[in-house]
């Protein structure tokens, strides 16, 4: 028997959490991402009521306000969402040990081995939806299929507050009528190319002669067609680790004062590297992203000879990268820090100079311990303290 994979996605997660917390918000267009006074930034989540106005995530806040002036705009409360997410995770853990949290509001569960215990797909789905509702009072959509890809697409179709089951063998039939944009991995560029080939639905892509695809996409064509046929082999990985960790923010107004750019950069770096250490990761590639007032976006990257998790080493690299970014005499709109090429269990010990590194590792371990208990803001390096005791960024990175 093939695998049975369940995909669960919380409906308008951040907005729903707020609506549960404050019932007055129910039934109203609620937009999480920034409050009324915020002019920059983008929508993080819009409630279904707000979606009726054409508002969707990643839309600039200004645009959202134009479309829905009477909407309720909130900055959001990440800790609260994290709590709710953990409750959902706990429910999923009771169904199967193979739970992969794909993000804060969606997860994959391999329920192949839980079939007999619960009595089949439908029973498992009903159980999860009921338990999630009991624990969090939040709506969610669940779907079950033979692999992650089909399950994810099915969830999208069943939203909101729905359930969809794709039986084994029905994957291609289910995909057939759907438009291309529903297929994960097909972005605007791929779609454009496919449309010039006369392909507008997943069904057409599935039966397109392979040579045509190979000609247009190279070897990527194989994967594209397999996906269109609903074939995917990705396993549910309970301990999937991120490939990179990034933090970025848009300034309230474009900043010319370089000192402030550096302070915010340092602050973002500290947040990113704290997040990285809590997952026992180390970075080898450090990237600084700067968007200037004229919307030119440049990234500056540096690869270290050895991975590190020390703020001091990461900061030294960022300072060098920042000098390069500064050569463009233009006000800065956005600054971001990304820690990439993440690895774990790969810390190469050194013959000389270990003492200094280990000292800093011990210091950071204690610092992180305090942050775990009392919050990140409790301990920060002096470099970013000029930003004030509590940093409030114009666009709080909600998922961070």
């Amino acid at each position, binding site marked *: 028997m093939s695998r049975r994979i369940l995909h669960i996605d919380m409906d308008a997660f951040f907005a729903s959490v707020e609506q549960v917390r404050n019932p007055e918000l129910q039934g109203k267009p609620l937009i999480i991402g920034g409050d009324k006074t915020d002019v920059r930034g983008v929508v993080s989540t819009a409630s279904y009521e707000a979606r009726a106005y054409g508002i969707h995530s990643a839309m600039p806040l200004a645009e959202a306000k134009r479309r829905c002036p009477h909407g309720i705009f909130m900055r959001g409360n990440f800790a609260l969402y994290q709590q709710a997410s953990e409750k959902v995770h706990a429910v999923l853990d009771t169904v199967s040990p193979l739970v992969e949290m794909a993000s804060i509001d969606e997860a994959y569960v391999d329920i192949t081995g839980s079939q007999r215990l619960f009595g089949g797909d439908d029973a498992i789905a009903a159980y999860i939806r009921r338990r999630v509702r009991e624990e969090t009072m939040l709506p969610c959509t669940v779907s079950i299929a033979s692999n992650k890809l089909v399950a994810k697409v099915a969830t999208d179709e069943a939203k909101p507050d729905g359930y969809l089951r794709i039986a084994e063998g029905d994957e291609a039939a289910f995909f057939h009528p759907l438009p291309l944009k529903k297929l994960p991995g097909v972005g605007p560029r791929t779609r454009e190319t496919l449309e010039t080939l006369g392909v507008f639905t997943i069904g057409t892509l599935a039966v397109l002669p392979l040579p045509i695809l190979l000609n247009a996409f190279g070897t990527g064509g194989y994967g594209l067609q397999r996906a269109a046929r609903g074939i995917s082999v990705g396993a549910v990985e309970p301990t999937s680790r991120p490939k990179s960790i990034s933090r970025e923010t848009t300034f309230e107004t474009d900043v010319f004062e370089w000192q402030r750019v550096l302070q915010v950069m340092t602050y973002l770096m500290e947040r990113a590297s704290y997040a990285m250490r809590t997952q026992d990761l180390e970075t080898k590639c450090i990237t600084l992203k700067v968007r200037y007032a004229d919307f030119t976006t440049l990234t500056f990257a540096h690869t270290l000879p050895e991975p590190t998790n020390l703020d001091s080493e990461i900061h030294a690299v960022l300072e060098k990268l920042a000098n390069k970014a500064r050569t463009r005499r233009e006000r800065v709109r956005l600054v971001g820090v990304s820690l990439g090429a993440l690895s774990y*269990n790969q810390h190469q010990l*050194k013959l*000389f100079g270990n003492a200094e590194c280990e000292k800093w590792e011990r210091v950071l371990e204690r610092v992180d311990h305090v942050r775990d208990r009392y919050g990140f803001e409790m301990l920060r390096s002096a470099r970013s303290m000029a930003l004030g005791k509590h940093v409030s960024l114009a666009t709080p990175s909600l998922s961070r």
Partner: protein
Amino acid sequence: MKISIPCQDLQDAVNKVKAVVSPKSSLPILSHILIETDDSAIRLSATDLKVSIECTVDCTVHEPGSMTASSQRLSSILGELPSGELTMTLGENNVITLECGRIQTRLYSQSPEEFPPMRKFDGVTPLRLEQAIVKRLFSKTSFAICTDQSRYNLTGLLFELKEGRLTVVATDGRRMSLAMETENIPEDAEVKVIIPGKMINEMERLLQDEGEVQVFIDESQAAFEFGRMRLSSALIEGTFPNYDMVIPKKHDKEAVLNTSEFTAAIRRTQTMTNEKFNSVRIGLSDNQVMLRVSTPEVGEYEEELGVEYAGSEMEIAFNPDFVGDILRRMDTDRTCLILKDGSSPGLIKPFGEDGPLDSYVNVVMPIRI
């Protein structure tokens, strides 16, 4: 200047010296080879200002003098010429005429006066060593030389001669290799210098298994003369770490492995790692060693090997490249792994009839599990 020389002889000589030429130098003359006549021979010299190579080759000198030629150009022309006698004549305006049978080529060149002067070692008494020994010691250690220029003092090989013992040591801060020889080493000389890695690499390539090498060393530079070659370079200033302190003395867990089996197994583990996840776990238990690699998105590898080991169970992880580099240069049938625990440096030595040998010592820092 005018000379005649068999094509092949000149090509061999050019190939020996041209390795040091940096193709993208800011000084155009450094892409050239200097050719000077010397009785019935010519001397070819090339340099990147740090390392210089000179090579002498017999020829017929019709007219003494000197000239330069682009190393790239000269070597590609020579590679395409039919075998036979080549005549090189320097004409007006540094134009070199190459004649070989019915082929006539003119090569524009630069004035030999522009070529930087070669290093001089007047009044330095050379040390005399066997080429085979120097070659062996270099090849056993050079792979560990640091390539990160920000750690300048580690970018060379420590060359130490003391009390009739020649010791060479290289380290990149994560592993250290030391090779030593006591036989046929001058008793009275005492030297301790750091020779740049580039020079060592060239020496490894050019040294032969027979004959003698004369080593000239003064305060700031060193030269090795052997056969009809001379390599010279500035020394690396700075202090080399105290290598003796790095070698663990109190490790008590000793595992003896078959070198060729272990080498083959490590090579197999290397096929399963990637740039980000480059470690092999070595688990030791009673007369058994387990090699384990687990690389996300790539796969897993496990192999069990026989081992002479009586210590308590333990596990340690290493970069397999570091271990492989050493094993490839091991010339005993058995290799000894001396450990303490998973976070202390590992010691890899050859294992002879009476136990571990101190003539080749490798310290490898583990990867924290």
